[in-house]
C-alpha cells in the first residue's frame, strides 16, 4: 500500500471525521477516533497512543473550561425555577400593541433569557413552552409561533454569557471578557432585525397574527410568578456582567457567582424544592459531559492536524494565491453555513478552529471579530435544515400537529433577516469591535 503524505493524511482524517459523523457515531468519538488513526499513520504507535490517551485528562483538568459547567448549572437552575415566565409576560404586556406583538415579545424575552442562561437549547425550550401555546391560542400562524421560539433561542449564543464564546475564547486564546462584550451589539442587532421582520410581515399579512382584540387580555398573562421573574433575570445578568467588568471576578468565576445568585433567588419560592436543585446539578453534569466530550475529540483532532501540517498548508495556499480577505471570509462563510447544516454547534466551531484559524491568523484577521462571525454562523446553523437543533427543540415543546416542515417554513423569514445582519457584521466589523475597544482599548 502506498504511504500517505502528511497532507494526504490530513485530508483523509477530515474525510473519516465526516463519514463517521454521518454514520451516527457520536461526534466526540468520530473526531477522536479519526484523530488517533491520523496520528497512528504519522507517528510510531506507542507515541500515537501516548499522545492521544493523555488528552482527556489534560483537557478536562482545566481552570478555563470550568466556566462551561458553571454557566450550564446556572442556566439549569434558571430553567428549573421557571424564571422565564415573568419576563415573557412583561414583554407581552409592553409589546402587545405592535403587529405580531406576542411574537416580538417572545423574541425579546428569548434575548433576555439567553443573557442569563447562556444556552440556546435551554432558551428555546423554556420560552417555547410558555409562548407557543399562548400565541396559538391568540390565533397566530403556527409556523410563526414556533419558528420565533426556535430563533429567539439562538440569541443566547451571542448575548453574554455565551458558552460557545467561552469555548472559542479558550481554543483561539482570546479574552473571554472581550468576546462577551463583542457579542452584545450583534446579539441586539439580530433581536431587532427579527422584531422588525416580524412586525413588517404581520403588518402586511393580517392572517399571520390577529390584532390586539383577539389576543389574550393582559390579565390572562398574569400569574404569581410574573413579578419575581421580571426582577430575577436582570439581577443575575447585572451581577455577572458587573462583576466581570468591574474586575471583581473572572468570566469563569462569574459562572459560580451567577449560580449562587440564581439559587438564592429560586430557593425561597414554594415551587422550587431542593430536589429541583439536585436535578439542575445533574442536568448540568450531563450537559457538561456531552459538550466537553466533543471538545476533547476536537482537541485530539487539533493535535493531529498540527502533525499533518494541513492548516498551515491551507494558510500558505491562501497566501500564495493572494486571496483577498473578502473572498476568504465569503468562502469561509459558505463553508460554515454548509457545516452548520449538518453538524452541531461545537462540531462546527471546533473543526473550524482546528483547521481554519491559522489561515485567518496569517492574514491578520481580528480574532475577536472572527469569533463573533463563527458563532453567528453556528447560530444560523441551529435553525437551518436538515439538522437545525433549535428547530427540533421548538418542535419538542410544540403541539403534535405542528410538523417540522411547518416550523422550517417559518424559519425561512428569520434566515432572510440573518442575511441582512451578516451583511452588516461582515461589511462593518466596527459593529462588533466598537464596544470591546471602548472598554478595553484597541
Amino acid at each position: 500500500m502506498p504511504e500517505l503524505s502528511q497532507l494526504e493524511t490530513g485530508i483523509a482524517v477530515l474525510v473519516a471525521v465526516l463519514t463517521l459523523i454521518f454514520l451516527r457515531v457520536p461526534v466526540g468519538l468520530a473526531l477522536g477516533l479519526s484523530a488517533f488513526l491520523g496520528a497512528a499513520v504519522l507517528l510510531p504507535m506507542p507515541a500515537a497512543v501516548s499522545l492521544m490517551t493523555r488528552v482527556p485528562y489534560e483537557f478536562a483538568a482545566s481552570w478555563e473550561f470550568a466556566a462551561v459547567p458553571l454557566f450550564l448549572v446556572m442556566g439549569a437552575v434558571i430553567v428549573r425555577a421557571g424564571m422565564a415566565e415573568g419576563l415573557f409576560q412583561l414583554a407581552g404586556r409592553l409589546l402587545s400593541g405592535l403587529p405580531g406583538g406576542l411574537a416580538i415579545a417572545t423574541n425579546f424575552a428569548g434575548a433576555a433569557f439567553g443573557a442569563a442562561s447562556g444556552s440556546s437549547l435551554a432558551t428555546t425550550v423554556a420560552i417555547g413552552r410558555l409562548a407557543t401555546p399562548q400565541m396559538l391560542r391568540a390565533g397566530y400562524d403556527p409556523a410563526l409561533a414556533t419558528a420565533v421560539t426556535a430563533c429567539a433561542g439562538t440569541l443566547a449564543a451571542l448575548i453574554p454569557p455565551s458558552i460557545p464564546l467561552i469555548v472559542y475564547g479558550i481554543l483561539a486564546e482570546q479574552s473571554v471578557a472581550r468576546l462577551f462584550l463583542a457579542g452584545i451589539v450583534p446579539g441586539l442587532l439580530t433581536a431587532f432585525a427579527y422584531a422588525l421582520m416580524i412586525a413588517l410581515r404581520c403588518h402586511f399579512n393580517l392572517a399571520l397574527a390577529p390584532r390586539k382584540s383577539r389576543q389574550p387580555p393582559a390579565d390572562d398573562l398574569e400569574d404569581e410568578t410574573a413579578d419575581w421573574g421580571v426582577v430575577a433575570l436582570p439581577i443575575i445578568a447585572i451581577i455577572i456582567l458587573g462583576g466581570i467588568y468591574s474586575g471583581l471576578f473572572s468570566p469563569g468565576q462569574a459562572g459560580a457567582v451567577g449560580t449562587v445568585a440564581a439559587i438564592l433567588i429560586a430557593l425561597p419560592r414554594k415551587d422550587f424544592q431542593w430536589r429541583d436543585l439536585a436535578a439542575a446539578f445533574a442536568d448540568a453534569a450531563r450537559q457538561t459531559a456531552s459538550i466537553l466530550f466533543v471538545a476533547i475529540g476536537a482537541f485530539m483532532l487539533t493535535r493531529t492536524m498540527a502533525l499533518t501540517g494541513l492548516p498551515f498548508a491551507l494558510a500558505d495556499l491562501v497566501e500564495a494565491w493572494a486571496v483577498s480577505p473578502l473572498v476568504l471570509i465569503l468562502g469561509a462563510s459558505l463553508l460554515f453555513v454548509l457545516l452548520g447544516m449538518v453538524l452541531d454547534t461545537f462540531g462546527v466551531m471546533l473543526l473550524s478552529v482546528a483547521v481554519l484559524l491559522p489561515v485567518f491568523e496569517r492574514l491578520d484577521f481580528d480574532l475577536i471579530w472572527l469569533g463573533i462571525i463563527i458563532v453567528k454562523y453556528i447560530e444560523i446553523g441551529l435553525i437551518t435544515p436538515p439538522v437545525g437543533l433549535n428547530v427540533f427543540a421548538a418542535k419538542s415543546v410544540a403541539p403534535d400537529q405542528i410538523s417540522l416542515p411547518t416550523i422550517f417554513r417559518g424559519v425561512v423569514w428569520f434566515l432572510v433577516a440573518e442575511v441582512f445582519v451578516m451583511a452588516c457584521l461582515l461589511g462593518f466589523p466596527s459593529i462588533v469591535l466598537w464596544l470591546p475597544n471602548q472598554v478595553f482599548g484597541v
Partner: protein
Amino acid sequence: MSKPSQQARLIFSFGEALGALALCLMVAHISIDVALQALIDLPLRGTSEIVSEIYMPFVVFGALAAVQDRREEIRVDLVSIILPDRINAMLDRLVQALVLVAALWLAWHTGEQALRAMMIGERIELGTFAVASWPGKLILPFAFAFLALSAAVRAMRP
C-alpha cells in the same frame, strides 16, 4: 427493563451523582474564594489547581455513561431519516460496538496512567500544604468502563 439493565442504570446514576456533587463543591469553593477575595482580600490558596485537577475531571467524566444511556450524546441523525428502521437498528448496534471498543481501550490506558499517579502519590503542592491530585485521574478509567457498559447495554436493548 431487565435486571442487569436496572443494575447498570444504578451505576450510571452513581457516576452522574458524582459529577453533580463535584460541580456543587466547585460552585461553593469558587464562590467562597471570590467572596474572601472581595471582602478581606484573602482568596483561598490553590483554588484554580484544585478546581482544575480534582473537581473538573469528576464533572466532565462522571456523567459520561448516563449521557450515553439516556441517548443525550451529541450526534447527527441525518441518515436515520432516510434509512429503513431495520438498517438504523443495525447501524446503531455497530456504533455501540465501536463505542464499546474505544471506551475499553481508553479505560485501559487512562487506568495505567491513574495507577502510576496513585503509586507515586501525585499531589499538588500549595506552599505549606499539598493536596493529592491522583483521585482526579482515577475517575477516567471508571468513567470509560461505565461508558463501555452503557454501550453494551444499549446494543443489547431491543
